[in-house]
């Protein structure tokens, strides 16, 4: 028998803690102190470390000291390489964002505030491993020394574009650098990364896969299929969730982030999960190394939630001042990854403000030089691959339809 409700039903639609004009409010975040989270043995059963899905691994403290059990104890040279790659990534982003404003291309996406993630992870894994990225892991290519001019040629879809003008700017692809072709459809790379890792295991090889997804895209079915497959077949893959708080204009609560942490999604699948300060180069490094060892020793996949903040607009087509407080990024309680690693190196006596300034100038100059080279070939519309190539690579060999249609275009 139907009982009357004590109150009428009401629908909850989650809302963020601040909108334009509001003061940023991060009081709801529960942040562990640096060094406070224990480091479980790599062989720990997922069930026995499920609390880690609700904690936050941090290594760098407010004074720039590396503290606690997750300190990866990196040598100064590795730290400097990481810092320089992050600086270069930011300089590249600034330049290409400006190139879009100058009408040199149609689109761009920055990774401001998230540089530590792809740079650290790109340095840890090898080019023999495969990264299945989203559109905000340009730091992986840059950390591995992929030619900036080739990235720009892709962004300009010019005659030297390695992928022949086929894709929207920033959808890079490089097998040689362990960087899988980026899809604009969200989440599709997740089960592919798991399958690639399964293939390595089927063949008895020693290569592993790493992939990234945004907090928003964890709602896609591909995410859940991927976690099921990763757990069932114990695939050697690192499954990153980059929680940068915003999916274009939707805050992470629209993807279910208020009910639980994104890392905790792993628990239901029986996968180990780590939740990590994504703006802390050392914490990202240490967690990735933990997951890497687990994968390489046949113990399967790890889910890592990288807790960060999307400092820039989603893309050049987006204006965040219309949906979030203007100074939220400045007020982000976990700071900026470049500033924090710089502070750490200075605290170690391995770096200085002068060296930082010199590194920034050098990065700008490096980007400028690549820009000159790429723009000499041409920006969008000034130069492009031959029209004939439009009909290539649909199949391994052209069928009669493509031959006829190519002739119809007259090429």
């Amino acid at each position, binding site marked *: 028998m139907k009982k009357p409700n004590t109150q009428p039903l009401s629908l909850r639609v989650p809302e963020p803690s601040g909108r334009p004009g509001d003061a940023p409010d991060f009081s709801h975040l529960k942040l562990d102190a640096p060094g406070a989270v224990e480091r479980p043995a790599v062989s720990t059963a997922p069930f026995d470390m499920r609390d880690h899905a609700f904690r936050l691994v941090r290594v760098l403290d407010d004074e720039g000291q590396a503290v606690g059990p997750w300190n990866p104890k990196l040598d100064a040279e590795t730290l400097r390489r990481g810092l320089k790659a992050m600086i270069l990534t930011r300089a590249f982003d600034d330049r290409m964002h400006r190139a879009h404003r100058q009408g040199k291309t149609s689109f761009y996406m920055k990774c401001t505030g998230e540089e530590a993630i792809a740079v650290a992870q790109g340095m840890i894994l090898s080019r023999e491993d*495969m990264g*299945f990225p989203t559109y905000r892991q340009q730091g992986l290519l840059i950390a591995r020394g992929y030619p900036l001019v080739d990235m720009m040629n892709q962004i300009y879809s010019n005659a030297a574009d*390695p*992928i*022949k003008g*086929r*894709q929207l700017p920033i*959808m890079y*692809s*490089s*097998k040689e650098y362990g960087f*899988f*072709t980026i*899809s604009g*459809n969200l989440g*599709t790379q*997740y*089960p*592919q*990364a*798991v*399958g*690639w*890792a*399964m*293939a*390595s*295991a*089927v*063949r008895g090889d020693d290569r592993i*896969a790493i992939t990234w997804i945004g907090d928003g895209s964890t709602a896609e*079915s*591909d995410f*859940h*299929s*991927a976690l*099921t*497959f990763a757990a*069932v077949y114990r695939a050697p893959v690192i499954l990153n969730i980059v929680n940068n708080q915003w999916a274009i204009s939707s805050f992470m609560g629209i993807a279910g982030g208020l009910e639980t942490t994104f890392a905790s999604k792993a628990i239901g699948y029986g996968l180990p999960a780590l939740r990590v300060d994504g703006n802390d180069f050392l914490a990202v490094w240490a967690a990735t190394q933990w997951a890497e060892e687990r994968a390489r020793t046949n113990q399967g996949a790890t889910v890592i939630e990288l807790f960060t903040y999307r400092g820039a607009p989603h893309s050049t087509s987006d204006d965040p001042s219309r949906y979030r407080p203007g100074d939220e990024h400045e007020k982000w309680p976990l700071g900026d990854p470049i500033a924090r690693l710089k502070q750490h190196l200075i605290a170690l006596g391995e770096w200085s403000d002068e060296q930082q300034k010199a590194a920034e100038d050098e990065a700008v100059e490096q980007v400028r030089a690549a820009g000159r080279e790429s723009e000499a070939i041409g920006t969008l519309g000034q130069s492009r691959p031959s029209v004939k190539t439009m009909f290539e*690579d*649909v*199949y*391994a060999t052209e*069928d*009669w*339809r493509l031959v006829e249609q190519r002739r119809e275009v007259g090429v």
Partner: protein
Amino acid sequence: MSEQHTFTKSDRRDGVEPDMADVARHEPASTADARPAVQPMNMIQALNSALDAKMAEDPTVLSFGEDAGYFGGVFRVTDQLQQKHGLTRSFDAPISETGIVGAAIGMATYGLRPCVEIQFADYIYPAYDQIVSEAAKIRYRSAGGFTVPLTIRSPYGGGIFGGQTHSQSPESLFTHIAGLKVVIPSNPYDAKGLLTASIEDDDPVVFFEPKRLYNGPFDGWHEKPVSPWKAQALAQVPTGKYVEPLGKARVMKEGADVTVLAWGTMVWVSLAGAEHAGVDAEVIDLRSLVPLDIEAIEASVKKTGRCVIVHEAPKTSGYGAELSALVQERCFYHLEAPIARVTGWDTPYPHAFEWEYFPGPERVAEALKATMKGGR
């Protein structure tokens, strides 16, 4: 998958249940030395033989899908592959078509040649994004940097009292996609040769298996007893590996009066329809829709001057529309009568009205007679 029980029962009523008694049990090609080079096989055995031979030859080939491992698939196409080739070469997958195809794409880009099973074509839609946006596009978007040598097998089509979720013919949803190949065999010999070619192909292939033909060449006369494959020449299948190239049609019956274009179950229905009408039809089994053997179509229509297209899928935007346009573009001045289409209706596939929906030989015969009447 509770529907399976229902399905199996209606299946039996129609004589489609796996019946291995009428043909000699297929033996693995890997130990084929002492066995005859050719054996009678039904479609299931021929497909199984293709996988078995290919897996024996090439360690990068693997097979997985829902119930497709230990048990060997609900239609038994992957029977014994796990026992012969090992757990990591043939295994069960979670009930996630997105995951099956997504993982297979990853494997293919690694350098394997996965051949996955989607249990029914009606279940393929959750994987559509992975097939259309990923498998089909990866070669192009990476300028050949990454490739996807993937085969997606899936039983399709009606005539088995499967209702709307076990009877559909979704081939035109895939022929429309640049970067995909679409292959549909109509007999055991082609099934084995075409599946082998699909696995060896360096691009993604959607391979639809007409499940009404698994155990016999069903011609649409559903009141008559089911005839077994063993009486057919096209059921005499080499036990070793062989390839039937993609993009080559097979002329099933030569004729002078009218060209019939068909694939899958409709090949046999068309032969029966022509016989019923008493028309000297040339029946062409397209075998692969993409790539399409346009030369064979053109040559035949220019000879006969008439064309009837038969498919199970609904009429609107079916592959018949594409074929009709192609024939019109290329053979217009040879045509003696309007091109006709005999297809499923523009409704979901109904359970109670199986034979009203299914384009049977009588409808084909009517279309052939009307086409013969029409013209100059």
